[in-house]
């Protein structure tokens, strides 16, 4: 049973992709038509990533942990609007975010890299540009409990895109409890807060998550540790300038 078989014409695009690995060694695609050069760029990225992994690690020196106070101070001089500091626990990087949009109670804060956290009265309702983002969240009655520093039970809905890109709701039932009082100073402001903990149980799976807020008497969330989603984990948000 002998025969030749060969790729059809369309296959050339695939072939260009396959061939890119080798080609990356002698030529990186260039031009203004990104539909044609992208394959090469990816391949070059892959090759670079592999060589970086294979080559012995250069001593990076001690990781510099930015001082939150210093970061806040420099952000306050360079940005005039409302500011927060945020640290995604899995990524580890502490970043200042400035308010770039306001729609009713919803405020959008952006990093210099154009990634955003969206807060409604201090409660996280969406992220963008981080990858596997929280699309939106219905904070419902939990919001009132948290801001009034009251205990109680409330429903929440988180929404994410699934592996196909279809939006899926993640309904949760949350129990809000209050904890100890805490006073602290940050970025030139004094906060007298009470800890409010929110423990949420997914209604359809075994997933449980927890959020913590340090809320002032007037309902300002001065500091919080909130769950973004299954992929991103928790983010800590510190209010810098309301």
């Amino acid at each position, binding site marked *: *049973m002998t025969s030749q078989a060969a790729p059809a014409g369309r296959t050339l695009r695939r072939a260009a992709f396959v061939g890119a690995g080798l080609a990356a060694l002698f030529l990186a695609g260039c031009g203004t038509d990104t539909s044609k050069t992208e394959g090469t760029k990816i391949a070059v990225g892959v090759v670079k990533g592999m060589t970086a992994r294979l080559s012995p690690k250069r001593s990076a020196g001690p990781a510099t942990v930015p001082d939150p106070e210093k970061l806040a101070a420099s952000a306050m001089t360079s940005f005039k609007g409302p500011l927060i500091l945020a640290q995604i626990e899995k990524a580890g990087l502490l970043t200042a975010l400035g308010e770039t949009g306001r729609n009713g109670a919803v405020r959008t804060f952006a990093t210099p890299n154009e990634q955003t956290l969206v807060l409604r009265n201090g409660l996280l309702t969406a992220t963008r540009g981080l990858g596997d983002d929280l699309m939106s969240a219905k904070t419902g009655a939990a919001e009132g409990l948290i801001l009034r520093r009251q205990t109680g039970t409330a429903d929440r809905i988180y929404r994410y895109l699934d592996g196909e890109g279809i939006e899926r709701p993640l309904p949760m039932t949350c129990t809000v409890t209050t904890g100890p009082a805490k006073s602290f100073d940050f970025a030139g402001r004094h906060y007298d807060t009470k800890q409010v903990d929110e423990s949420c149980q997914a209604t359809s799976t075994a997933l449980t998550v927890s959020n913590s807020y340090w809320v002032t008497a007037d309902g300002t969330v001065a500091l919080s540790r909130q769950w973004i989603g299954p992929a991103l984990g928790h983010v800590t948000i510190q209010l810098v300038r309301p």
Partner: protein
Amino acid sequence: MRGQKIAGIGLTTVAALGALVAYAEPTLAPSPGTFGLPGLIDMPTAESNPEGIITASVFRFPGALRITATFQVTDRLGGAFRYSRVPGIFTNGTALYDRSFDVQYRVLDEKGWRPALAIGLRDFIGTGVYSGEYVVASKTITPRLRATAGLGWGRLGSHGDIASPFGSRPVLDIGEGGKANTDQFFRGPVSPFFGLAWAATDKLTLKAEYSSDAYDRETTAGTFSRDSSVNLGFEYRFNKSASLTGYYLYGSEVGLQFNLTVDPRRAPAPSGLESAPLPVRPRPAPSADPAAWATDWTADPEVHPGVQSALAKALAKDGQVLESMALSATRVEVRIRNQKYLSQPQAVGRVARALTRALPPSVETFVITSMASGMPTSSVTLRRSDIERLESEGSVEILRTAEFTDPLTGPNTGLVPTPGTYPRFVWSLSPYGEASVFDPDDPVRADFGVQLAGRYEFAPGLILSGSLRKKIVGNLDESTRVSDSTVYHVRSDLVEYQKQGDPGIHDLTLAWYARPAPNLYSRVSVGLLERMYGGVSGEVLWKPVDGRLALGAEVNYVKQRDFDTLFSFRDYDVATGHVSAYYDFGKGFLGQVDVGRYLLGDWGATFTLDREFANGWKVGAYATFTDLSEADFGEGSFDKGVRLTIPVSWTTGKPSVNKVTTVIKPLNRDGGARLDVDGRLYETVRSTHQGDMQIQWGRFWR
């Protein structure tokens, strides 16, 4: 045309969250057999892979080499395509190279005491070296132990048969191969087989079976000796996608198998590594700022150009081209070309938000028209107040308010082209590669080189494009294979093009895309249309923006190009063309039928079925039947193949409109061959139409 009627796109299947939140794996996952689909070793089981899973495996032992790709088409239906090498059994003791297809359908699920039950056909079209049918039952005994027993016919009934319940098995009339061997199914001797699979750990599965395959032809050829019917094996899973299987086979041989699993729903990178969208900027309440809502700005001739220029800049930063804009006191229409986002709703959603930041408050109606190849293909009409109100809600809320229309039914007045959009020129210099697989003399040959491509757009829809290739390294020209086709070689001289077409003009065409009437699209292309043919190609497509059905017609008059792939032609010309029907069955299944005349002048039809995922992955299969006789067609009897499309954004997590498409054809012959012209209309317009946009609507607020 309001969104409501189709808004139930399965948004709230909470069960689907299982996959999102926690990837709970059963203790005993289906494990591939030597034929690729879930199985014991050589014997099948009643297990199925999860729906949508794609696998690839390479199995080798002295009696065979099998390279198999599988796809779980639905929850119950799985299919496999295989390329195999069986040493010693072809003429003069040479190896048989063969392609084969399998299907398996799970009839019953395991429930209580009842085992799962499946029915399957192996190598059911083709030359039949692996042909066999089976009914198999599998039962979970403990969470880690599963037992399987079944009955096999054909090859699977060749050892230890007990009866021939459905009569004797007719001798296979191979002919040119490639046809379903229906008269053989479940005929002849039937043999029992059975086995066990035990998950020793979460990564290691051990398997044992009693095989009913006699390996008659292999043992006759002396490639191995079948000393026992018992096979033993283990599968070790490195991670969720890769595993290694080892076997001790038939009491005499060792076999090895490497397996890869790809789940189109599990991207290697997080989705959405991109710049965040601009947030909505709501308008002040009319009572708070009545002056802002005045409409006297319409009298100012500076406003329209000023807004358009600012908007064009903002959109350009986001990878979109504002081709034209019409602005009145209460309504705006923008025509955009999305060059960045695979999902058109994401592009539309970003434009909508940019509009809230650029337009005077009195403009309440946003009409966002998508452009494809210079044609306006769909308009999404949104109320600005809905965009302001629903920014933080689920995407289905804004979908309910969105109205999809054909741009040609709109007012179409006052559209002002954005200065500097046309003419427009883009170019690229990039590497290319071309491979030939399945060549028995040398299974993999390849060329690598550089491709210079350019595209000049004179005006919307009028496009000159071309590409030039120069090989740098490769061995495709070393092929000594000469087409054995007895009819005119309309396609099978590919090797000659590969040998002589260096450097070559791959294509050079002038194309004109237009909208002759509502629901109608047209294309005319002239020039060197593809590597082997040049001429003129004309196409019309009827596709309502909200319709599942589309109809098209294409007529081409082409001449075969010389092997040197420059400007000269061979002495062969043909009028070829098709009428086509396309239908979106829903749940990601798309069908296509093309009826017409092929490059050889043969008449017939091509049937295509694709499974398309919302994220752009596509797995499809096609078959072409024409009036060319099987003898004239040659090996394979008719043209068939499978195709796979993977979006680049899936692999990187970064936005991109590009996709990588592979067509795997077992044979490249002359019957049922179609012209390969670029820019066919259905694929050009579909992603901007209502059906596709609703499926991908979850990205509107991305």
